[in-house]
């Protein structure tokens, strides 16, 4: 059995189940080390990596020269000058190409690290039950190391849901042991495996975007208006122009001067039919945007969506309509549903940030 299959999950879970684990092993992981690891990453990524201290994690995006997003991901500052970059898409080609002129070593170690997401309100309690004493002290985006089965378990307070949650990183040889420990000791805390649909609901509730869904990676786009800039994905906070150079900086400065073409918004849609791939219209029935992700949110009890809007639409208070097609007993129907632009995440419980993390 290959280690990447260690955490294979087949069980479909209702998305509002509070205590869940999800296999992250297939997520692409790169180890970036060497004298120039920091300047390399700072040139690659739009935000200031120097602010991510050892033992901390940062969410980031990286762009091509045109300021269009290639992918988003997380940078783990494992130890001084030693970084892990996680992303959905394979990035080795772009990273290697970007390394010219830097003293840096880049290794894709996707299959050398087993990773598991442990998300939900009891996730901290489960961690403590398997022996991670003091796990509750981790602040969001902290990294800590705990002894586990003669080895080391790395725990980061990160995740792709909008809830309290952790990601666990371990040598693949100990992966099964970790899984067994979690399910042995976590039973009383209601641990269940989580499927991709549950994760999809959770990440949309949190307002997290996904490559290939909410944006097309710039290196895969053929038509010039298909890719998006960080500003167009509502990630302008991740762009730090005080850095003198990073990929896309000149184009993004120009975009800031001229204005963006699109914006990404969160929509609360009337009714309960998910508005997947729906066109968004203004009051005069002009198409002004497209839904990129949509689900019924069991946590927010709302019909939610992420949508890419043509500028200037998508302002709070704009009158917008979603054209939703849905099937009932093999018959397709269509409904026009009123949309409201929502600011902030759909589901954002205080426990997500509370430190020390509560047991439940």
């Amino acid at each position, binding site marked *: 059995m290959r280690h990447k299959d260690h955490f294979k999950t087949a069980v479909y879970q209702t998305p509002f189940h509070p205590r869940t684990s999800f296999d992250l092993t297939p997520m692409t992981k790169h180890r970036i080390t060497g004298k120039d690891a920091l300047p390399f990453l700072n040139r690659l990524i739009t935000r200031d990596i120097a602010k991510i201290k050892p033992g901390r994690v940062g969410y980031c995006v990286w762009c091509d*020269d045109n300021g269009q997003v290639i992918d988003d991901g997380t940078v783990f500052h494992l130890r001084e000058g030693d970084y892990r970059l996680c992303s959905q898409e394979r990035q080795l080609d772009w990273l290697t190409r970007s390394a010219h002129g830097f003293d840096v070593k880049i290794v894709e170690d996707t299959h050398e690290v087993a990773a598991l997401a442990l998300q939900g309100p009891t996730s901290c309690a489960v961690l403590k039950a398997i022996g991670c004493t003091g796990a509750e002290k981790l602040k969001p985006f902290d990294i800590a190391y705990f002894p586990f089965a003669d080895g080391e378990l790395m725990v980061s307070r990160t995740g792709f849901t909008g809830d309290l949650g952790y990601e666990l990183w371990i040598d693949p040889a100990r992966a099964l042991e970790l899984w067994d420990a979690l399910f042995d000791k976590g039973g009383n805390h209601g641990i269940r495996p989580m499927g991709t649909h549950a994760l999809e609901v959770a990440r949309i509730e949190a307002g997290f975007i996904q490559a290939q869904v909410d944006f097309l990676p710039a290196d895969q786009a053929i038509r010039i208006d298909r890719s998006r800039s960080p500003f167009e994905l509502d990630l302008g906070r991740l762009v730090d122009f005080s850095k003198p*150079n*990073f990929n896309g900086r000149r184009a993004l400065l120009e975009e800031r001067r001229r204005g963006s073409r699109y914006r990404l918004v969160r929509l609360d849609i009337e009714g309960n039919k998910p508005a997947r791939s729906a066109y968004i219209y203004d009051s005069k029935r002009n198409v002004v945007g497209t839904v990129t992700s949509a689900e019924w949110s069991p946590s927010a009890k709302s019909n939610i969506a992420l949508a890419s809007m043509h500028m200037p639409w998508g302002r709070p208070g704009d009158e917008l309509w979603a054209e939703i097609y849905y099937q009932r007993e093999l018959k397709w129907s269509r409904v026009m549903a009123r949309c409201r632009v929502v600011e902030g995440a759909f589901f954002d419980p205080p426990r997500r940030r509370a430190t020390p993390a509560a047991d439940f």
Partner: protein
Amino acid sequence: MTDRNRIIIVGAGHNGLVCAAYLARARREVLVLEASDRVGGAAITREFAPGFRVSACAHICYQLDAGISRELKLGAHGLKTAHANLRTVALATEGDHLVLHGGRLEAGLLPDKDRAALADYHDRMLRFARVLGKQHNRRPPRIGGGGRSELIAAAMLGLDIRRLGRDPMREFMRIAGINIFDVLEETFETPLLKGALALDAVLGTNLGPRSNNSVLTMLHRLSGQATGVTGGLSLPAGGMGAVSEALAAAARAGGATVRTGSPVASITLEGDRVSGVELESGEKLAAGTVISNADPARTLLQLVGARHLETGFVHRIRNFRSKGMAAKLHLALDGLPGFARLAAQRAGDRLVIAPDPVYIDRAFDHAKYGQCSPDPALEITIPSIHDRTLAPAGRHVLSAIVQYAPFDPRASTDAARAEFLERTLGLLERYAPGLRRQVVASELLLPADIEREFRITGGHWHHGELALDQILMLRPVPGAAQYAMPVDGLYLCGAGCHPGGGVMGAAGRNAAHAVLGGERAA
């Protein structure tokens, strides 16, 4: 404040000097920094053996822009011609040589068909070359720029092609991207004629006659107007260095300062714009604008540094094709060489050894795979016939472009150089019996030597191949073809920019206009 107004030009090649002269005329404070101890870059005259001087890289002036000569008053600054328009002699091992002048056959035997075709071919190619020539003084359009001036610039190029007339336009479009071999095959019969014309197309390139783009390189070569004749070949009095000396004099007369012996170690930045340069001596010089006459790779990857540029741009610069294939031979001779069956008064013309296009292609094949050509093709001049200052009385210098020599030979450069020199002398001996005994001293520069001496990455005398994907708005790379580089205040002005190399000066002048235009826009 004065520092911010200062313009530093890195490199006193002919383009750097032209750029300096135009900026000085516009009353800018200009400082030119040259690494070597003389101005000129690859357009210099230097001594290679006691008493023998030669144009050390470029040796025939065929492209110097007439407008630049006039506007900078190069004549008043000392530029004279030793010979205004050389003939071309296609040397034959047996039988008659062909003496060509423009589209005319002046001596030698050609079938009537070839003789007629030659005049027609020459006219046709000159018309096409003029289309290219018209672009030399224009800033190429920016792709996707969308602005009005960009559209006009693109339209002008289209219009120039359209104005050729329907049939010539079709012919231009047909041949612009293909190879010279096919064009010559369908036009002429005589191998010697085809060989001489094929050599025109591949001189200084990394192409063989059968390589695509070799029509384009031929048109580029014809597109200049040395001494008022399109496609004319001239020899400056005092060698190519005299052109550079006149340009430097023009720049100085305008108020520019030219410092030699001042190699630049890096172009310094402050935030996202240039702040000046640091010399190898450690001296720091501040400037608001830095214009580099160095090649694109040296300028951007070494002097600026990849980390200050974006990934995609660095990738494109790294893939700018810039490996030279031409070697340069200098011979000090104790008398005039005697080329078999060549009238003495013809020895001062441009002599070519390229018996037929297949010969050249075979020479290219070896170089493609890392070996110097066993039987190279040559372009030879004996400039001392027209210019007695180059050699002691009664003695002569021979200057030849020898093709092909790879940039990175499979053997060591030293071994390859020794073998290639031997091969070339052996070949010359076949055409000019007794020449070997006349050789007092010799020097052969392989592309790697040219890289070292002239600081041209890859040793390509155009700083980079002239090809459809590396000309006009694509030169050196898309997104940086308008002289301004993606670092505020940094410009390129050398042969790596539109319209490329050859001692022309247009890139330098266009860059100066881009700098002045950029000031107005800011």
